[in-house]
């Protein structure tokens, strides 16, 4: 009996080592779902395709593998768009399968038809429309290869229904056919030497590490370089965990809501060693004022990121891990006592701080840190909750902090926590959320309950769209236009229980720690509703258009 397209797809997924596929079925996917039922690949039914996409993304970030999701044609596929864009902006390996109407109907405005290759062209690393069942195996192979190699990214495969039903016997190809895709390898040895020389002759170097360090699995090399060369390390939001924040060389996060000491250090540096980071505007602030005395070494796998925003003196294109391995032997051991003393003084004089009266969101994050021993997997939503999660938890491991950095997608954290829990069974997973963000994918409580995932949600409930409110307070005369939620927020505990999860509302600082411990101990999904100070702000803050050493910040 010969195979049909659906068999080829399922077979391909098994060969690629896919454990889970997140999604929702639909009319054009019926042949595929029929075959999926008896496959080794486990299908996880979510309640919105955006939830499926973010779950695949969270799974990918937590495991290092390719996240896989599937949606039906038309509205199912368009519901995936935000999740694909989220993965694209953060360079996350993902393959998204979308059903499509039968090939003769394409372009005819058929029922539930959407031009997904057109719609996702600018938000995917690449996409494919499979028109012939004989191309299917090769396309899937290519899709996974593209997703996980080079600079990772989401790849969309659009599957017309008749292709999934067509009969053919195909061999699964050994190598994908991508003549235009070449991988940048090991970095140019002359550039590497130039970089090492620059480090050796610098007086005030700073290591600036981003998400690329985690994608490249280069945390150990970053650590070795920092310790050998006496170089303080700061990370972007995407790079949290690439260097242990408990180490004395750690400056924690820099940029718009980074620590003051990280911002001062990089602004006063004479050499910036950028690894797997892209000098985004959240980091640089005003470009013409950024690090005026610093030469820049930029190690990145993607040449388009180099010299895009700032002038780079020593570009090194290639895989971070391999480049650092080649570079470290050429870097001299150094103690840098004066520079490190200056940095230590900044750390001492400008720590992160907040007022201790009432129930403060920063306190909640600190208590989560203590209760989990600093070892939990933390996902976040977007806005103030995200910034406090980045500031007040000390990350020590890669793939411990999972957050939508580049796109900043509210509603990301909860489904991502579901995906992360599936990737890391047995570990404690916390989604640090806002009351606005959590409601965007609240329906995924059903997914968490249905698959018995003990994810924990900590809502920093301030009754507002917090970050918007903060900007309105600081720059728009406290006119809270469209940012007030508290009039219509639900009883979050009631909603959790209605879905079959558990929940607890906390209004007292003294109840915070016991509540967290209760959530961790429970085998069910748990929603903690922390009613926090409604007008708390994230500080320090670099206002838009300012240099990053010109922060505003009400410290305690």
């Amino acid at each position, binding site marked *: 009996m010969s195979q049909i397209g659906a068999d080829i797809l399922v077979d391909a997924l098994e060969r690629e080592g896919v454990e889970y596929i997140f999604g929702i079925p639909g009319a054009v996917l019926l042949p595929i779902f029929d075959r999926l039922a008896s496959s080794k690949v486990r299908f996880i039914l979510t309640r919105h395709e955006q939830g499926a996409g973010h779950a695949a993304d969270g799974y990918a970030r937590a495991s290092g593998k390719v996240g896989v999701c599937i949606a039906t044609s038309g509205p199912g596929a368009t519901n995936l768009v935000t999740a694909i864009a989220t993965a694209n902006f953060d360079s996350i390996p993902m393959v998204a399968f979308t059903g499509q109407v039968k090939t003769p109907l394409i372009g005819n405005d058929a029922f539930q038809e959407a031009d997904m*290759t*057109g719609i996702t*062209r*600018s938000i995917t*690393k*690449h996409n494919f*429309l499979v028109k012939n069942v004989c191309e299917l195996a090769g396309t899937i192979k290519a899709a996974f290869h*593209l997703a996980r190699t080079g600079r990772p990214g989401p790849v969309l495969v659009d599957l017309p229904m008749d292709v999934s039903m067509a009969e053919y016997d195909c061999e699964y190809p050994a190598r994908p056919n*991508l*003549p*235009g*895709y070449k991988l940048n390898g090991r970095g140019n040895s002359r550039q590497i030497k130039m970089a090492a020389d620059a480090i050796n002759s610098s007086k005030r170097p700073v290591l600036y590490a981003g998400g690329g360090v985690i994608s490249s699995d280069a945390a150990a090399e970053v650590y070795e370089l920092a310790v050998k060369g006496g170089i303080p390390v700061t990370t972007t939001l995407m790079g949290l965990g690439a260097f242990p924040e408990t180490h004395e060389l750690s400056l924690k996060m820099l940029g718009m809501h980074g620590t003051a000491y990280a911002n001062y250090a990089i602004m006063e540096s004479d050499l910036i060693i950028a690894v797997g980071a892209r000098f985004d505007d959240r980091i640089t602030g005003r470009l013409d004022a950024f690090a005026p005395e610093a030469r820049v070494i930029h190690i990145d796998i*993607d*040449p*388009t990121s180099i*010299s*895009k925003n700032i002038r780079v003196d020593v570009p090194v294109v290639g895989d971070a891990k391999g480049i650092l391995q080649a570079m470290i032997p050429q870097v001299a051991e150094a103690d840098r006592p004066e520079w490190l003393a200056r940095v230590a003084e900044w750390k001492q004089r400008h720590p992160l701080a907040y007022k201790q009266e009432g129930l403060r969101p920063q306190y909640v994050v600190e208590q989560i840190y203590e209760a989990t021993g600093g070892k939990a997997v933390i996902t976040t939503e977007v806005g103030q909750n995200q910034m406090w999660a980045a500031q007040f938890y000390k990350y020590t491991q890669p793939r411990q902090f999972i957050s939508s950095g580049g796109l900043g997608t509210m509603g990301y954290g909860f489904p991502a926590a579901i995906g992360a829990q599936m990737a890391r069974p047995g570990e404690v997973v916390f989604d640090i959320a806002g009351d606005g963000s959590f409601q965007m994918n609240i329906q995924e409580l059903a997914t968490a309950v249905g698959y018995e995932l003990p994810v924990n949600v900590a809502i920093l409930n301030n009754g507002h769209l917090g970050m918007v409110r903060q900007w309105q307070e600081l720059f728009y005369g406290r006119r809270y236009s469209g940012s007030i939620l508290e009039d219509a927020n639900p009883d979050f505990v009631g909603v959790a229980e209605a879905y079959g999860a558990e929940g607890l509302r906390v209004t007292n600082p003294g109840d915070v720690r016991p509540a967290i411990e209760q959530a961790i101990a429970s085998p069910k999904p748990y929603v903690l509703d922390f009613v926090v100070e409604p007008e708390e702000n994230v500080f320090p803050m670099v206002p838009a258009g300012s240099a990053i050493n010109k922060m505003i910040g009400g410290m305690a």
Partner: protein
Amino acid sequence: MRHVISVTVENKPGVLAHISGLFAARGYSIDSLAVGETEDPAVSRMTIVTRGDDQIIEQITKQLRKLISTLKVQDLSELDYIERDLVLIKVNVPAGKRSEVIEIVNIFRGKIVDVSLREIVIELSGQETKVQALIDLLKPYGIKEMARTGSIAMTRGAKK
């Protein structure tokens, strides 16, 4: 500054859309874009005339290389190259003016490919500047319609 970029791409549906989408999304200019098959039927060559400062041109070539379907990207402006633009111009030829127009066409070594009572259609191929010069000379007579391919280009000398 004007740059001529030659891009060889996989000859597959959607590739043209991908490249023009890239230019549109990132706000790069397209003065002209010509595309067609090459000696290898699986490969097409696209010639794009764009403009920008050095930093923009560097980003354009890097972003084009990053696309999965592009095979090779060359900024020809830095090399020795041949460039041709083909134009068909339907020009007004009022009574008594026909020989003037024919003279202009001959000076440019163009061809007349259609003649009617009040119009002629001229065909010319050459460098962009030459084509533009002819258009400018014909404007006073009244250009009724014009179709231009945009530049195609190729490096001189042995294939690199």
